[in-house]
């Protein structure tokens, strides 16, 4: 049997680099101002999948749901070694919470068809929820191994995988039947650099949106179809699926399919502690320590 691994990836705003003009006066975040990056743990998940492919052969498919510009991240997946890249994108997916996201992803996995393993990062840095992986596994009706630190053994004959999972103050080794979904924690696998030859080839890979953008009004729809076929024949197509393509029910997608709603967003209000400015001098520090000793904080 040939191994097929699907990796769930997400392009995220780089929340570790938030500067002043990213926050709007009303306290909301202007996402457009943040650089979009490959979610770090998803990149490690792809690395783990590629290592299994290096060892056992087979194919790796990168799957994302996101806006059209998530094609940038999918090209990076191709540069690293993914065989196939799929962009699930449709305005009707907008404002999806984790439940609506996992619904769409599991429908896309159904369309992909046979698979042995699904990898994903433990969580994305823009939400830190760690919910999409387990919710996708639940919708697919398959087991999961969260907080994966390492894949130790894949037995394609017995159709089992052994993985090391982080637990509180330790780890456990689990053996799961295939197919199974694994979410990968930080530092599980240092992502490989881009392969230069793959980069030269796949920098020309295009999503449907990007192909459409190259077609101007003077061309007709037939021309568009021909162009798509040509890009596909060259193996440079980032497959682009909408709601109909994955046979999803609109009522479970996007905002409508999301039970959680943002009720209120506030700027962080700092608690006004009684504040003493302490001069950075021996006298100043001495006074502070006297204060703390009187309050029985020390001793």
């Amino acid at each position, binding site marked *: 049997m040939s191994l097929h691994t699907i990796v769930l990836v997400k392009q995220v705003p780089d929340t570790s680099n938030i500067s002043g003009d990213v926050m709007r006066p009303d306290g909301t975040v202007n996402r457009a101002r943040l650089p979009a990056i490959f979610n770090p743990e998803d990149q490690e998940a792809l690395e783990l999948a590629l290592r299994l492919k290096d060892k056992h052969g087979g194919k790796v498919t990168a799957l994302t749901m996101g806006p059209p510009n998530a094609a940038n991240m999918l090209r990076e997946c191709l540069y690293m070694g993914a065989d196939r890249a799929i962009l699930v994108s449709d305005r009707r997916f907008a404002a999806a919470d984790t439940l609506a996201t996992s619904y769409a992803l599991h429908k896309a996995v159904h369309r992909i068809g046979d698979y042995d393993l699904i990898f994903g990062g433990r969580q994305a840095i823009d939400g830190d929820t760690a919910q999409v992986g387990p919710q996708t596994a639940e919708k697919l009706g398959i087991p999961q191994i969260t907080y994966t630190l390492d894949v130790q053994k894949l037995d394609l004959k017995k159709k089992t995988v052994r993985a090391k999972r982080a637990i509180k103050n330790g780890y456990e080794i689990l053996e799961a039947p295939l197919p199974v979904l694994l979410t990968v924690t930080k530092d599980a696998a240092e992502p490989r650099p881009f392969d230069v030859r793959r980069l030269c080839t796949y920098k020309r890979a295009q999503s449907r949106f990007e192909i459409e953008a190259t077609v101007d009004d003077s061309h007709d729809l037939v021309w568009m179809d021909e162009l798509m076929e040509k890009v596909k024949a060259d193996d440079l197509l980032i497959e682009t699926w909408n709601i109909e393509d994955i046979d999803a029910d609109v009522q479970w997608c996007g905002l409508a399919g999301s039970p959680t709603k943002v*009720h209120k967003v506030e700027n962080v209000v700092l608690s006004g502690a009684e504040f003493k400015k302490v001069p950075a001098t021996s006298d100043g520090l001495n006074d502070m320590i006297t204060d703390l000793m009187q309050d029985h904080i020390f001793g």
Partner: protein
Amino acid sequence: MNSKLKDMVWVFAEQTDGVMADVSLELLHKARTLAEKMKSQVSAVLLGDKIEGLSETLFAHGADNVYLLDDVELKDFRSMPYANLITNLVEEKRPRVVLFGATHIGRDIAPRVASHTRSGLTADCTELKIETLTIRKVQHEDLLLQIRPAFGGNIIATIISPDVEIQMATIREGVMEMGEPDASRKGTIIPVKVELDPVEVAVKIIEKHQEASSVNLKGAPIIVAGGYGADTPEKFQLVKDLAKVLGAELAGSRAAVDAGLISSERQVGQTGTTVRPKLYIAIGISGAIQHRAGMQESQKIIAINSDAEAPIFQVAHYGIHGNLTEVIPKLIAAYKSQLH
């Protein structure tokens, strides 16, 4: 117990090898506050093998009922049997609120339960409230306000799930306060039949290694923490020196962990441990909300920072604007001189 009250607020009672997780007990105390507002009872959902004895602890911390799922297959935690059994119970009894600790276990199963029951689920809440809200002229009773920092901790979001019956949340250990247990409280044990399909127990545990942690941030009366401003081994050594002199536990912000200066089990903040010591000394920590969320309940806070505008000063009781390489030696000298 007043049996006329509804059974609407549930807490997943997480145990490992017969020891209750602190976070579950913390959540029971919070659940009591929520339940009073909803005029509801509080129930704990306890899974494991030969763990009935833990029920007394759950009653003492605020549970009125314990749903007891006791079976040898549940001895060690595994996702599928745990998640599926809780799902079945939630579907049958339909509580309004289900709370889980945001642990390696709670964050593993809560999404599966929420997915199957199509419930709203918010991760890592820092505050929970019950309110009645009118949204587009429709009145929603007993809404769970799920409050958490969002977007890298730059904002505080209040999440609600107004259109579904079941509202779920995970909460990190230490965020809610554990009240005093009341050993005289009594409750009802409700045994639940455990039936599992072979497919549900197909994942096997081959090995398990767990050590008692040598780090006890939660129990430490004094914590000295370093951050981005102490990002060289030389500077961080000064932070360690101060911790040693004060007999304090050493901690750090995410930046210190990312720089490899301390282990992640010493990280304080939203993604680390939440602490409330008698004294917290933040050195070279700017005070991003992720970090503040983990320490702002400390009794006294000293901030040492070279940036006078650092937000950490706004939660500090004592602010020292200066270079840590100069301030720490002076601070150590001042402390030592007062000991004699």
